[in-house]
C-alpha cells in the first residue's frame, strides 16, 4: 500500500462556484482536449461514432434538480473532478505505489509506468473522480494540469489548469488553499465554501461555493408572491390609478423636468 505525505508544502486545488456555473461543459472539454495530447496516454474514446460512445474524462459536469420547500424547482450544475484530498483513499489503496500525492503541492497523480490498471483506486474514491482509460488500461485522473501550472513554455498568465483557463463564466478558481491569505482562500471564506461529502473524512482540498439564494420572493413570502414586497411602494400610483389620473400627473412631471 502507498503512504501519503504527512504534510504538503502547498495545497493546490480548485474552487468551483456553483452560483455561477451554467453547466456549459467548457471545462470538461477543454480538460479533455489539453490532456489527451499531454502527459501519459491519450484520453481514449471507444465506439466514438457508434452505438455506445464512451471515453475517459478527467472532469465531468453533472446536473441536479432541486426542489426547495418554497418556490419553484431549481437546477444546479455540478462539475466534478479529483478533489486532491489530504487523506486520499485512492493513494493509500494503491498496491504498486502508482498513485501518489506530491509533497510539494499536494497534487494527487498516477504514475502510468507503474499503474497496472487494477482499478482499486477508483473503487476507493468516494467521489467517482477516477476513470480507467478504455484503451491504454491505465487509471486517469485530474492532474490539476501539472504540465501547465509550472510550464515555462507558457506565458505566466496561462499557468493555470485548462479548465480554469477556459471557463466562460469565471466559475473556476485555482490557487493554494493551504495559504489563508491567498485570493482563493479568501474567496472560500467570504462565500462559505464547503467540503464535498465531509463525512467521508477525505479532507478534500477542492472547495465548492454554494449557489446564492434563488427566487428570494418565495422564501420571504412563504412561497407566494401575493403579500406586499418591500418594493411594492413603488407600484403605488403617484396620483390616481386610472388613465386620467396618469395623464394629469404627466403635466406636473413635465413641469419638473422643465
Amino acid at each position, binding site marked *: 500500500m502507498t503512504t501519503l505525505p504527512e504534510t504538503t508544502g502547498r495545497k493546490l486545488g480548485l474552487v468551483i462556484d456553483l452560483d455561477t456555473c451554467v453547466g456549459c461543459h467548457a471545462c470538461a472539454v477543454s480538460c479533455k482536449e489539453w490532456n489527451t495530447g499531454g502527459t501519459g496516454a491519450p484520453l481514449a474514446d471507444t465506439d466514438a461514432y457508434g*452505438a455506445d460512445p464512451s471515453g475517459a474524462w478527467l472532469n465531468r459536469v453533472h446536473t441536479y434538480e432541486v426542489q426547495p420547500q418554497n418556490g*419553484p424547482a431549481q437546477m444546479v*450544475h455540478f462539475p466534478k473532478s479529483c478533489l486532491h484530498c489530504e487523506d486520499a483513499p485512492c493513494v493509500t489503496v494503491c498496491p504498486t505505489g502508482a498513485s501518489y500525492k506530491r509533497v510539494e503541492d499536494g497534487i494527487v497523480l498516477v504514475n502510468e509506468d507503474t499503474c497496472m490498471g487494477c482499478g482499486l483506486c477508483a473503487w476507493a474514491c468516494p467521489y467517482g473522480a477516477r476513470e480507467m482509460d478504455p484503451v491504454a488500461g491505465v487509471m486517469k485522473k485530474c492532474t490539476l494540469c501539472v504540465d501547465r501550472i*509550472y510550464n515555462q513554455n507558457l506565458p505566466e498568465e496561462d499557468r493555470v489548469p485548462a479548465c480554469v483557463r*477556459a471557463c466562460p463564466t469565471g466559475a473556476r478558481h485555482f490557487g493554494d488553499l493551504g495559504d489563508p491569505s491567498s485570493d482563493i482562500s479568501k474567496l472560500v471564506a467570504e462565500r462559505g465554501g464547503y467540503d464535498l461529502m465531509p463525512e467521508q473524512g477525505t479532507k478534500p482540498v477542492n472547495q465548492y461555493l454554494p449557489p446564492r439564494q434563488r427566487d428570494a420572493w418565495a422564501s420571504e413570502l412563504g412561497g407566494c408572491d401575493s403579500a406586499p414586497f418591500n418594493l411594492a411602494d413603488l407600484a403605488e400610483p403617484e396620483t390616481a390609478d386610472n*388613465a386620467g389620473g396618469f395623464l394629469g400627473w404627466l403635466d406636473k412631471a413635465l413641469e419638473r423636468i422643465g
Partner: protein
Amino acid sequence: MADGSEPKLDLSPRVSDEVRKTTCYMCACRCGIDVHLRAGPDGEMKIRHIEGNRDHPVNKGVLCAKGSAGIMQHYSPARLRKPLKRTGPRGSGEFEEIEWDEALEIATGWLEPIRRNDPKKLAFFTGRDQSQSLTSWWAQQYGTPNYAAHGGFCSVNMAAAGIYTLGGSFWEFGAPDWERTRLLMIFGVAEDHDSNPIKIGLGKLKGNGAKVIGVNPVRTGYNAIADEWVGITPGTDGLFILAMVHELLRTGQVDLDYLCRWTNAPWLVERDPGASFGLFVRDGDGKALVWDRATGQAQPFDRPGLKPALKGDFQAPGGGRARPVFELMARKYLEPEYSPDAVAGRCGIAAATIRRLAAELADVAFEQAIEIDQPWTDFRGERHQSFIGRPVSFHAMRGISAHSNGFQTCRALHILQLLLGAVECPGGFRFKPPYPKPVEAHPVPHGEVTADSPLNGPHLGFPRGPGDLALEKDGSPARIDKAFTWENPLSVHGLMQMVISNAAARDPYAIEVLFLYMANMAWNSSMNTAGVMEMLTAKDEDGEYRIPKIIYSDAYSSEMVAYADLVLPDTTYLERHDCISLLDRPICEADAVADAIRWPVVEPATQAEGRDVRGFQSVLIDLGARLRLPGFVDDAGKAKYRDYADYMVNHQRRPGVGPLAGWRGKDGEASGRGEPNPEQLERYIENGGFWRAELPEEARFFKPFNAAYQDWAVGMGFYDQPQPFVFQLYVEPMRRFQLAAEGHGERQPPDHLRAQIKAAFDPLAVWWEPFEQAALKKDGVDAQEYPLHAITQRPAAMYHSWGGQNAWLRQIHGRNPLYVHGSVMAAHGLKDGDWAYVISHHGRIKVPVARMDALNPHTVWTWNAIAKREGAWALDAKAPEVRKGFLLNHLIHELLPPRGDGLRWSNADPVTGQAAWFDLRVRIEKAEAGAELSEPRLGRQKSPVGQGPKDVTYGEGWG
C-alpha cells in the same frame, strides 16, 4: 510511491511548435482562438490544442465546450473529400467522386443559360453563412431575386423589430452594459447568440452582485443561475411585457426626459380620418413635428431647446388635429386588458409577481441611476455635462422571437426598454458600432429581373410602406420564397424555410436550380422534415424531379448532401479564409469597432489522404468569373479575384470601403476608409487575426444622438454623412401598411389579408394569441386535444446538427429525451426511460421521456437537432442519435391547421414571415417501449465518406 519517493516529472513539456490565431466557427459567436500546432510522430503538423485568444474582443480568452472540441470537428470522419456527382436517386446518398474542373463545368453549364434567359430560375440560399456580404453581392450580380440567408427561420422577428424600433437588436447589434448593469432580465435565451459573451457577462454580474432574472419556460443554463426564474408559458412574453409597461405607466415610473429627447414620444400623429390618419405630422422638409410648449407651436423635432408636449389635442400646421405618440401609447397600455390581473392566467405568472417585477425594474432604473462625468453634444447642438445611466438591461433571443406574435413581442420589449430610458445609456442596453442605424440607412428590397444583367439592387431591405413590396405588376410575388408580399411584408431576411415547398409546388413559379450553402434543409432546418424530403425527391409525370437541379456546398456529410445532384465540398474552419466584416455581421463591442479574419492554419490538402476541398467563398468567386458576372471579371473578361483572400483585400464596395476595415491604405495606417493594402492579411495575422479600434470617450453612449459618435462613424466609413435619429416607439411604416389594409393607396392587399394586416401592423406593439393555438380552439375554448406547448433548446455544448459527428460532444449530448413536468408524467403514468407518442395537428412521433420539474408545467421540451438520419455524419446505424434521437420538426407544419375559412394560412409571423417554431401544441400518450426506436424512421442514406473509426486516441505520441 510505495517507498515515499516521487517520479520525476517534466513540468515544462513542449506545448506546441507554433501558435496560429484565427476565428472559431464552432457556432456563430466568432470567438478568437489560439490554435497550437505541434508536429506529430510522422512530422506532420497537427492541432495540439485550441484555446481562447485573451486579446480578442468577443471571448477575451475564454472558450466554450464547442470551441475546445474543434479538434474533433476538424479531424471529423464526416468531412467530405472531393466534389460529388449524384449517381443514385435523390436521398440515396449514392455519388461518384469527381474532380473540381468537372464540378465547376457542371455548375457553370447549369447556371449560364439561366442567367442568359431568366435569372430568377436560380434560387440561391445560404444557411449559417458568415459571408453574406459576398454571397448576396454574387446573387445580385447574377441577377436572381431569389437570394437570402437563414434569418427567416431563425430570428428575423428580433432583428426586424430591433431595426424598426431602435436601429438594431440584440447580439451582433448590441449587448447589456455588463460592467454597470444592476439588473438583467433575459428572455427566451438558451445557448448561442451570444455564446461566450453572455457567459462572461453573467459571471461579471454575479461578481458585481447584480440581479439576474430569467424569463423562460425551461430552467436550464443561464436560467438555472438566474436569481429569479419566471417560468412563463410559451408565446405569452408580449402580454407579460405589456403588463409591466401598464404598471410603469400607471405608477408614472417612466423616463420622461429621455422619452422627450431621444424617442418619438412627442411626435404628433394625425388624428383626422383619411389617407394620412395615424401618420406623423411633418413640415415641408418632411421633418416630423412636435408641439413645443414653450412657443405654443408645432416645431421640427430636431430643434434645440424644445419643451415638447406629451399629451394634448393640437392643431397641425396643415389644419388637421394631432396628438403626441406618448398619449396614444399611454392610453392604449393603460387599458385594463393589459393589467397584470388580466394577463396573469395566460402567462402563468401571478399578477403580484408582474407588479413586483415592474417595480423592481423601476427601482433600479430610477433609484439606482448612475452618471458618467463626460461632457458631450447631441445632434440638436445641446451640450450635456454627463451621461445619465439607467442600470437595467435586457437580452432576448429565439424564445420570444420564434412565435407568430414574435415581431410585436420584440417591439414590446424595446418599448419597455425605452420607457425606462435604458437604451444606449450607461448600465443599459448598448449598441455595438456600426449599429444603431435607422431604417432610413438600410436599402429597400429589390426584385426586378433583367436577363443577362444584375438585379436592380440589393435583395433584402426594410420596406417603408406597401410601395416597397417585392411584387410583380400583376401583384404576384417576385421571389420564390414570397418574401415581401402581403402575407409577410417585412420579411427582411427572406424566407428560406419556404423555398423548397414553393419550388416543388412551382408557386409562384418554377425554378431550374436550387443552390444551397451550409443549410441542413433536408433535416433539422426545415419544418415538416419528412414532407420536405418528399418535395426534394418529388417527380413529374415525365420522371424528372420537380426541382430539376440541386447544388449544395457543405464541409460535412450532412442529411442535405444526400439530396444534392452536385456537392461542392467546403473546408473546415481551420483551413479557410473568411472575413468577419463590418459589411456583414460584425463582432464589435459597445466601446470599440472590430472585425476579424479566418485564415488557413493548416492546408486542406495535408489533412487527409486524397482530400481535395475548397473554401466555398473561393468557389463562388471562381463561378462568378466563369459566368463573367460584373464585378467578378475585369474589362478583358479575366477573373478579378484569385480567391476569397484576394477579394477580402482588394474588393471595394464603396471607394475606400472594403470587407476589412483594419490596416487600410497603401501604408496600412488607415482605419475604416482607405485604399486596399496588399499586406492587410499579414497585419491581421500579426495582430492575432482581428482588428479593433476604440471609440472616443465622448462617443460611447447615446450614439444615435451623439455628435461625436456620428462624426467618428462617418470617418470610419459606416456611412457618408451623419445620420442622427431618435428611437421609434411608434413605427410609421407599419401604419402605412394598415392604411393600405383600410383601403388607402394604390397598392392594395388582397381582401382575404386585409383583416390580418390591419391587426398585425399596429404601429404600437400589440399581442395576439399564437396562431396555432388560436386555430386549434374549439368554440373559443383552448384546445384540450393539444394541451401542451412543445419547444426546443440548444445545448450549450452543441450547435445544430454539426455537433453530432463530434466524438467528444456526442458523449455529452448524444441523446435527447422529451422533458416532461412531473405532474404531466404522473397523469400519464410515465416514468423516466418510458416512451411516449407526441402528437400535434400535423404529425405523431415516438420519443423517450424524462421528468423535469424546473419547467413550466404546460410545456414539454427537448434538445435541438440531436437526431440524425441513418447514414449521415459518418455515424453508425446503431448510434443513439439515429435510433433514439428525434426532431420536433416532424410535428410542425409550414401551414396552420384549417380554420374553416377555406384558406390555409402560414405558420409564421404575419409581419415578417418568421417560422413559428415555438407555437407548437401537442399531447402525449404513453407508448409501448418495443424496440426502443424513435419514430418516424426516415430511411437511410449511403455515406459518401464511410463510417468513423471505432476508437479515437487523439494525441498519441505526444505524451
